[in-house]
């Protein structure tokens, strides 16, 4: 069947045969840019709708079902409405930074998409420090939040921004350690290598207990990094009315909203790549028969499936748990996750060196 891979490469070849390289690359860049914008929009719409439906069913209700078939157009209506809503800037706010913050957040989210492998050989830039690049760029997003909270000239915003600042930077550590424990196994930061190394099974299964621990820690950490409940102190509605984007309205608010969901997608896809083999179908050792069957499912499906499963898990957390208090939150990181992940990393190193993994 026609897979993502073939399409993209056909386009690529055609461009480079018909035009001279520099023109071709410009055109290709144009296409890619449009695709990415499209991806953003679609992700925003789909994920928000998904969230609302999931929460609805967990809360024994129906959720949006009147706008469009089965409520499918609900989020579209919301987006349009937000676009048609006045975006006001409070006086006393630092206008420049206030307007800059949403841009920064969106651009950062965009940049992280570069090394993500959406399907077999479908990847913008397979750079040799893939994972490190992702964690590096994602550490930029906290600046956007601090900027927004700072510029709003609003107490709730400032409190929310400081909270999420401390929270995000803290949890970056354990996320990094968890990722490292896979890097130790693969011996490369390159995304494609990491996926390739799971040809005979996903690390989650190959890596014994340490891999599972690392996986859990990673999920918790990214939940905190994306300010999701139960770690959503930045937007703790009942305490600070809306956290760092209290003063944002209309499209600027929509951009924050969108960036939040795109970040969720990104971290989940990274988790899927590290532990569940990205687009790699479920292979088990040398069971060639089984593996071949699995290969019939196109790689893009695998990738999307895994990612959305993880996203669902995040939503499951959100709609089940109460919110932590700020000090408990930081305790969890510094007293539990960080030490555990350090020890876990050492175990993993031992396994890697001794080659005990499958």
């Amino acid at each position, binding site marked *: 069947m026609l897979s993502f891979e073939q399409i993209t490469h056909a386009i690529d070849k055609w461009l480079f045969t018909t035009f001279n390289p520099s023109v071709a690359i410009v055109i290709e860049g144009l296409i890619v840019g449009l695709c990415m914008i499209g991806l953003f929009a679609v992700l925003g719409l789909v994920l928000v709708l998904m969230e609302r439906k999931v*929460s609805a069913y967990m809360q*024994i209700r129906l959720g949006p079902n009147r706008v469009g078939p089965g409520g499918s157009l609900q989020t579209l209506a919301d987006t349009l409405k937000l676009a048609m809503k006045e975006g006001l800037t409070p006086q006393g706010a630092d206008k420049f930074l206030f307007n800059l913050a949403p841009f920064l957040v969106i651009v950062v989210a965009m940049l992280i998409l570069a090394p993500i492998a959406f399907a077999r050989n479908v990847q913008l830039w397979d750079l040799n420090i893939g994972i490190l690049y992702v964690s590096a760029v994602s550490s930029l997003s906290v600046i956007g939040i601090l900027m927004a909270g700072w510029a709003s000239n609003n107490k709730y915003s400032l409190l929310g921004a400081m909270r999420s600042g401390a929270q995000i930077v803290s949890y970056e550590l354990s996320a990094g350690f968890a990722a490292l424990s896979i890097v130790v196994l693969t011996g490369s930061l390159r995304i494609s290598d990491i996926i390739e190394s799971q040809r005979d099974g996903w690390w989650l299964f190959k890596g014994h207990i340490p891999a599972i621990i690392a996986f859990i820690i990673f999920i918790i950490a990214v939940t905190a990094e994306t300010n999701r409940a139960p770690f959503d102190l930045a937007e703790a509605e*009942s305490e600070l009315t809306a956290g760092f984007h209290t003063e944002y309205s209309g499209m600027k608010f929509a951009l924050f909203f969108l960036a939040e969901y795109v970040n969720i997608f990104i971290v989940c896809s990274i988790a899927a790549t590290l532990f569940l083999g990205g687009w790699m179908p479920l292979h088990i050792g040398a069971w060639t028969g089984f593996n071949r069957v699995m290969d019939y499912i196109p790689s893009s499906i695998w990738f999307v499936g895994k990612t959305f499963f993880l996203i669902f898990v995040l939503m499951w957390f959100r709609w089940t748990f*109460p919110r932590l*208090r*700020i000090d408990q939150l930081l305790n969890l990181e510094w007293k539990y996750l960080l030490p555990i992940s350090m020890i876990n990393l050492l175990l993993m190193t031992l396994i890697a060196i001794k080659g005990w993994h499958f």
Partner: protein
Amino acid sequence: MIEEISTTEQGELVVNLGPQHPSTHGVLHLVVTLSGETIKKVEPHLGYIHRSIEKMCESLSYRQFIYVTSRMDYLSSHINNHCCALCVEKGMQIEVPPRARVIRVLMDELTRLASHQLWWGAMAMDVGALTPFFHAFREREAINDIMEETCGARLTMNYMVPGGVMADIHPDFQRKVKEFTRFFREKIGEYDELVTGNIIFKSRMEGVGFLSAEDAVSYGCTGPAARASGVSCDIRKISPYEVYGQLQFEEAIETGGDCYARYLVRMREMRESLSIIEQLIDNIPDGEFQAKTKAVLKLPKGEFYSKVETARGELGVYIISEGGTTPYRIKFRSPGFSNLSALDHMARGYKIGDLVAVMGTLDLVIPDIDR
């Protein structure tokens, strides 16, 4: 006065929570002085829903003024009406027929259940868990339907009249209530599963907002807020009204004094109310549902005080009559008012997140405080 507060010592931040705020359950206005995230001072500002009910009642007849009181503590509106009816009956020595007494008590307990369910959902929402709210409302709706069938309204059912109840219970009443109790007995287990045992919730609640027994009495706290500190203050036990004297039920008392204790007290009260309902539902005596009363009620000259146990604590109605058809002066001693006065004492030194938890477990209803 906000200006005068805001010039605090360097590094202290004065934040207004409310009047419009998700977690203040209405229009309570708290001026919170923070240093970092730690609460230095909480100053409640009331009156954003002060509807001058006491003044109104001075110009309403003894039949009419009852309905206004269901707007005070609308979550236990039934019990408010009950208290007023009791006070009028006390003044006129009306003998309430036994059937009416039992019906009243049943309604009270159902109201208490509904109120506690809403509290449970809302408080879980305050600490960030959104799903319990919807589960709680499923049960609450079941109660509302029963109420609606018999009283004709979902929330502000004006069902109590001096001398009994306005109408006889609906034929389906007993069946439905039995169904409900069976249904709720199993669901309350889910409550524990979802919230009570949850490690995050526990750590949010335990050791937060401590209130000692002495302070509880001195601040005039009543109801679950005081019982959680080990003060026995259940009017249903101390000075039983209606048929509470003949019933077997326990006064839920904890000694923790913190938010978690208050939480547990209310959870136990739900079970107690259930058992009360189960005791009564099958043996409602036959007979009149309303005593014969004159068309126009006149209380003799004098003072009459009656108190009942609402879902929030001790509600007192103090009527001073000059012998006319309207009260000369009427005073509602509302439980929330006194409980709120302890808020500052309870919240000091904790985090701003804890303030939300404390308010959640105090279960404040602002119109009840402001009146």
